[in-house]
């Protein structure tokens, strides 16, 4: 048995596909690469691949992670070249590291996501900055998530690591950087933070036109690829 941890991207070309779509895209790529991937037993066999944290429709990423289990060893250069050759537009294979033995699953290992957001300003940059400073200072902020049938209120500051950084971005955009904690109890989406900023801190932004990019996923203070 042999395993690989991959660092891959979700690019502009596939910004609007869901996490599930992304997973099946990778599954098909692994099949095209003709790698000796392992499947679960039973009537409905599943390819043994696993991801760290779901990425929402509309969000790109510079660093997604996927673990894959093989039935027989493949040397790293061969694995890397075979998979890279068959990836569709929008997915780049950055790293592939072989590992054996027990390693914390990606889902359990991931603790922090780093985002960069470009969002059109609908008012002054200084007003946006004031709002963000205020948000960074408060101890609590409540987001109300409308689910299909019920409404859930979430205290969002518990998921914030460090302050949100704001800068004037390209073409009249506001550029934000934020670190969001991913915990066993849950997390918050960057788009939801934008709504809180707009609705409760008077940050003048067009949330619906925001483009969000995940820059990194960390566990134990390191990129997830460095945990194997």
């Amino acid at each position: 048995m042999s395993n690989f941890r991959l660092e891959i991207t979700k690019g502009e070309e596939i910004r609007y596909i869901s996490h599930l779509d992304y997973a099946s895209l990778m599954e098909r790529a692994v099949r095209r690469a003709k790698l000796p991937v392992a499947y679960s037993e039973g009537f409905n066999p599943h390819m043994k691949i696993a991801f760290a944290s779901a990425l929402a429709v509309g969000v790109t990423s510079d660093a997604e992670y996927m673990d894959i289990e093989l039935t027989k060893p493949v040397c790293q250069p061969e694995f890397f070249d075979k998979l890279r050759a068959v990836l569709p537009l929008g997915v780049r294979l950055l790293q592939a590291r072989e590992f054996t033995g027990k390693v914390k699953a990606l889902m359990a290992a991931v603790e922090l996501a780093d985002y960069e957001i470009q969002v059109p300003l609908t008012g002054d940059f200084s007003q946006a900055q004031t709002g963000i400073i205020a948000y960074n200072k408060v101890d609590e902020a409540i987001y109300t998530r409308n689910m299909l049938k019920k409404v859930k209120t979430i205290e969002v500051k518990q998921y914030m690591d460090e302050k949100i950084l704001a800068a004037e971005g390209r073409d009249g955009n506001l550029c934000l950087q934020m670190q969001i904690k991913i915990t066993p109890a849950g997390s918050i989406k960057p788009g939801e933070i934008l709504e809180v900023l707009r609705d409760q801190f008077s940050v003048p932004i067009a949330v619906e036109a925001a483009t969000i990019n995940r820059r990194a996923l960390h566990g134990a203070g390191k990129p997830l690829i460095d945990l194997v």
Partner: protein
Amino acid sequence: MIKLEPALLQAVSKPARYTGNELNAVNKDHKLMKCSWALALPDVYEVGMSNLGLKILYQVLNDRDDTVAERVYAPWIDMEEKMRSEGLELWSLESFTPVKTFDFVGFSLQYEMIYTNILNMLALAKIPQQSAARGDSDPFIVGGGPCVYNPEPVAEFFDLFIIGEGEEVIEELTDSFIEWKMAQCPGGRTAFLRRAAQIEGIYVPSLYEVTYDGAKVTGVTPIVPEAKTLVYKRVIKDMDAVTFAEKPVVPYIDIVHDRLMLELFRGCTRGCRFCQAGMTYRPVRERSPQRLRELAKTMESSTGYDEMSLTSLSSADYSCLGMLVDDLFADFKDAKISLSLPSLRIDSFSIDLAHKMQQVRKSGLTFAPEAGTQRLRDVINKGVTEEDLLTAAAAAFRQGWKAVKLYFMMGLPTETDEDIVGIARLAQRVVDLYSQIKGRRGVKVTVSVSCFVPKAHTPFQWFVQDSLAEFERKQQLLKDNIRDRSIQFKYHDARTSYLEGAISRGDRRLAKVIYQAWLDGAKFDGWSDQFKYEVWLEAFHKCSINPEDYSQRERSFTEHLPWEHVSPGVNKEFFLREYKKACQQELTEDCRRGRCSACGVCPNLEAAVVDGGKKYE
């Protein structure tokens, strides 16, 4: 190039329907091409992407160095609203090029209730909807697919139709276009259409004159020498040699048929008298097992799909099916691929096969007895007995299946209440059979009943369709006769079948009704949640046309039928003989192995049955 802003995409459902970039999508530089095609299916992405015909034509056209083909589907309601408010024109998925700048826009016509979507897509593309209003800078609008066997209701909207199988004729049309364009388009648009009309299988409706006598059509006659009096369909003679969709576009999002499609053969000559596909796709032409294995391997490696459907009109009739399935399983033994058959024949061979195919995954079983009594099954030439069904169901139950779906139709010619009650009785026998075999209850039998729509170029093309009230009465009657809770009864909205009945046997005058319905907001009529029956009725009323003149008027055998100038190669005399045999409950053999019934298709099209079983006998 059309640019889609994040704010727009983030405001619509399933934005990945509109952003392309899929694996195997072909991107070519339009400036270097001599001809460009937009291949359209007038329904949403998930439906359009599932169509095999367009996948094949996409490959045929893009295999050429001088031609580019791109895809376009109907935007869903929310996207349409955005396009209208932002002034966005309909674009192609590969290069985001406005559809109106293509040389050809080809629509696949899968069923009548999607005609308003064609008008909607043309409007969104800013292309004039009537062919007569189009100018030299507009694309040629081409129709193809199963509905072209009566193209008349939409004739005014199309510049030309491709009748029959498109692989060869679409290349001939493209060649002809390039020749004309390279010669600086002599004579303009009309001259090209007259040139195209000379290609076998091309029907140019504007080159014909239609004469009427009240509700009847008395003739459809060519007005120029290039137009043929009778346009025969095109047929591929060698299925092994023809191009197939070996490298289909792989969607990112889940689509209706999200699997590989391996087409085993074309045509079905079982001769069910209600079935338009059975009449219009003749004769049976199989691919060889060797070729199919080759195709399967190429398709699997080019896509990475783990599911493959063995498609055809009646896949279980493929002469070497058992052997092929074994070979495919052997070929893919490391690749964990699951194989499926879209339909099963009612016999134990099919059950064994289905069992074998489900080594990997398990699903339900579907049979189509079509009618509830032997008498009526003989009328429609469905060569299946109650015993066949019970034997097949017994085999299925012994293999462990617990759910069976049974398809029927109501409103078939000569049908009486006894035949309707027969459906309930048959379903009950299947339920009882399960208890007998298993010694306990627990089976689920789904009875799905559609309303029969008589179609052009079938033995029932003269037949009077049941009225709306009669359909609804029969549905109620059947409901009242189903008493077992193991049986679930599903039926269709009879109002859809009522309209389909009028349109499918309509003439050119219906174009204004379809246009009026679209003007008044009809679109996605095949989607039950979008279907606006009142808008349609009102449209008929506004145009002073009675839909029942088309669907419920008794047509005499001597009456000229509006679709007679277009032919699948099967002679009218054959349909007439079959109609009469139907009334006598006489059966007709399958010519694939049995006696030739002289339908005319082979001599008319210089084609022949290609059947592996026959060859090896």
